[in-house]
């Protein structure tokens, strides 16, 4: 009997521990919707003929569910006239949100931490020059000029668009350094000059 008494005291003293534990259990059944986090779903290049404002072409890359999951739903080829100059604006969107979040605005605000880099390859004859700059006078690359050359032969023409997040490491003079920072965007658009 005495043993039983002692045992029950033992159990009783352990009880507070079990009951004292509960908390954040309700949150488990209410997960966050990942789509609430920031995502670049869409990269748009809006290219306007500098001689004719009515002649525009927009190339889009769109991957609504971000990295992994489904493949990109839109991946356009850049089709531009040969021997023409275009004023180009880059728009980054998060279309997983309503309303749609324009991420390129944030890049503009944080111009001193970001830079776009462009390079053409595979026979795509495009000369690229920057039209904008951050507070230090270093390009950001949201606005650029494309000067196209001769008609593309073959199907391997590419334009690489890279956005680097360089933080405090972004140079304060010169035209920037593509080797610095983390890549937020890197897309190889197929190019066709006609």
């Amino acid at each position, binding site marked *: 009997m005495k*043993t039983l008494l*002692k*045992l029950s005291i*033992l*159990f009783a*003293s*352990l009880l507070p*521990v*079990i009951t*004292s*534990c509960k*908390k*954040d*259990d309700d*949150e*488990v*059944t*209410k*997960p*966050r*919707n*990942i*789509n609430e*986090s*920031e*995502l*670049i*779903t869409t*990269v748009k290049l809006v290219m306007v003929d500098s001689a004719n404002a009515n002649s525009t072409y927009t190339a889009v*890359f769109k*991957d609504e*569910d*971000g*990295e*992994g*999951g489904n*493949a*990109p739903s839109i*991946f356009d080829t850049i089709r531009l006239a040969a021997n023409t100059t275009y004023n180009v604006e880059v728009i980054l969107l998060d279309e997983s949100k309503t309303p749609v*979040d324009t*991420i390129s605005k*944030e*890049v503009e605000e*944080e111009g001193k*931490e970001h830079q776009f880099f462009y390079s053409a390859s595979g026979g795509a004859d495009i000369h690229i020059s920057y039209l904008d700059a951050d507070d230090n006078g270093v390009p950001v690359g949201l606005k650029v000029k494309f000067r196209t050359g001769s008609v593309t032969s073959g199907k391997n023409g590419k334009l690489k668009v890279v956005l*680097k*997040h360089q*933080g405090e*490491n972004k140079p304060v003079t010169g035209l920037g350094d593509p*080797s610095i*920072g*983390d*890549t*937020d*965007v*890197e*897309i*190889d658009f197929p190019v066709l000059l006609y």
Partner: protein
Amino acid sequence: MQYKYLVISIGILLQLPLLLVAQKVDVEPCTYKLSGVVIDGESNQPLPGAVVGVRDIAKAAVADTSGKFEIMHLCAGDYVVECRLLGYKVLISTIRISEDAYRKFILHSDTCMMESVVIIAERNDIEKEYTQLVFELSGKSLDLTRGLSLGESVKKIPGVNAIQSGPTIFKPVIQGVYGNRILIMNNGVRLEGQQWGVEHAPEIDPFLANKITVIKGASGVRYGADAIGGVLLIDSKDLRKSPGIDGEVNLVGISNSRGGAGSVRMDYAPAQIKGLSFRIQGTVKRAGNFSAPDYFLKNTGYKEQNFSWQAGYQKKKFGLEAFYSLYNSDAGIFSASHIGNLTDLKNAIASDVPLETSGFSYKVARPYQKVAHELSKVQGHYKFNKWGTLNLSFARQYNNRAEFDKHKSSNASNDESQVRFKITTHTANVNFAHYTARNFSGELGAEVILQSNTTGGTAKSFIPNFRSYAGGIYFIEKWKKERLGLEAGIRYDQKRMKAFMYENNVLVTPVYRFSNFSGSVGSSYDLNENVKLHLNFGSAYRPPSVNELFSDGLHHGAARIEKGDRGLRTEVAYNTSLSAHYHYGKVFGELTVYNNFINDYIYLAPSVKYDAGTGAYVPDYVLTVRGAFPSFTYTQVNAVFTGMDFAFNDSLSRNIIINSRFSLLRAVNRNTGTHLVLIPPANMEYGIKYLFHYSEKLKDPFIAFSHLLVLKKEKVLEYEDFKEPPPTYILFNLEAGATLYVNKQPIDISLAATNVLNSRYRDYLDRFRYFSDGIGRNILLRVKIPFNHSFKSK
């Protein structure tokens, strides 16, 4: 070059049988027996595991669970008998044998510890309990790891490695098996954090431990799910049994990171209430950027603050104990390892030096991890007169892990973390161990685990919210008579898990159920007083972890898309090991061969597709806004791990001890015959230790030199990794230490230098080997000041 070392190793191996033979020579018919009991001077309790040894003739016995021992076949004569147990003062007495003798040895605790043990501390006390392979770090050998993280501390044990992410994050690897497959028990409670991540280190303050035990091989029956590769037991010192106050202060200085650690433990047992005992313990660690031989590793500093308390009440029949620990760490992640996309990764790999370097700084900046882990436990036991002991324990753990990316999300207004996991785990255990009767001892137990996890932060994460319930029952029975020990156990477990997550803006709640039987059979056989053989078969299982089921996204540090598979089955391991222990005076040797079949072994396999143009399989890239990434999927294969571990110590003279250890392992996918990734390469260490003569003021002074060799990992599949395994490397280490007596107050001081030559090297198991060399020369200064004051009991 590599073969040369292999030859040396084999040479040392060959010495082993010679010693066995040499030892057999002096057998003469002696018939007397020395038996007796070993008890604790303060509590009068028996001391199982105490070693009673007869000097000069190298006969010894280990006290059994009731403290009893027997030494057979003694000739008539005078003998010097030593009785020792870790944590107690050595007792030496002279015994005249002219007939069978019985002695009672009373040991008194020794807070300043004792006995310099090379690599492996006293093993005998636990061999009694396990037929499995067990290694223990305690006493001086544990002291020599102070200041290191848990994963790094156990690397000295043969067959144990660590997967690291830079200089501060280590995850233990036992016989090639890692991650969720290694169970860590913190003071009897299974550690439940976010162990699925390779860059998630165990949330334990190693200063808490008085003893770190490594059990190699599948141990599912005793410890439940996940113990496929083995178990790490972290145990703090037993609470004080006699009234008084004691404790210790540990200080460590680390040159490489200009860091330091300080830890204080204080135990108190009041004289007024007998049986009541308390402890408080706390640790502070701080380090700045570590450095490789040629450059600093930017943002590799860390901060850690830990605290624990313990209280116990012990009576003859029952005991109650409460334990609480809090672990808090901020660990910087090496900046140059944070990669935006595959092009960045390729650039980083192509560069000989990290693309981001810095000077020295203590600042822990982005990217970093902030982890808090809290453990509360209450446990009690009751000793029934006839039957045995009933143990009950309840524990609650709360783990809060926040990971901060290199850059904060640009739409985040404050300094939010990108991902945050909060996991709460409740465990309840009941266990009944019956007293030894007719050579049988054993236990029957049950365990319940409730777990709930929530995921937060601003970015996509690998694991969803989930809630799980798991339960298991087990029964283990042991039989020991004379030279032979047998053990068998069986266990049944069930687990139910429900996940809560959004998929395309719809809440889904998949449910999983897992159930499994595991079993083990083991035996130990004493060939003679010096050689003991162990043969063990064990099984264990592991349900797929949440990340393996649900991952779908970009792993930034690794520059790859990782995809889970919701159809994964439970992993099951069948482990066989055979080992021989040899112990003769100061000579100690151990050889283990093992084979671990893991069916449905889950690993991250690269997705490949058939390229009709070249007729070969090429990596399957996934196109994203950040560029193309290789895609990896959690895949199940039948694997087999086969290997051997070897350790050997010998005293060449009274002053010189040599030691060596090496491990070989081969891990193969049985379906294809190809080798698995992230498996430790062959590694070996040789050392020599010189013990000086000592004076009253300076005890146990020593100097040791060792040399670590890690061979290049061969036969890895090229397309499964971004970079070829690093070449073979050799590191030289030096150690020196002594116990200084200042007015009878002992002070342990040691100085250790690792990578003395400041060599450049990269380790295959270091995930940051793509970006930087391993750390350069590091000098650690360790000081330990124990203190003890007993109250006069009334």
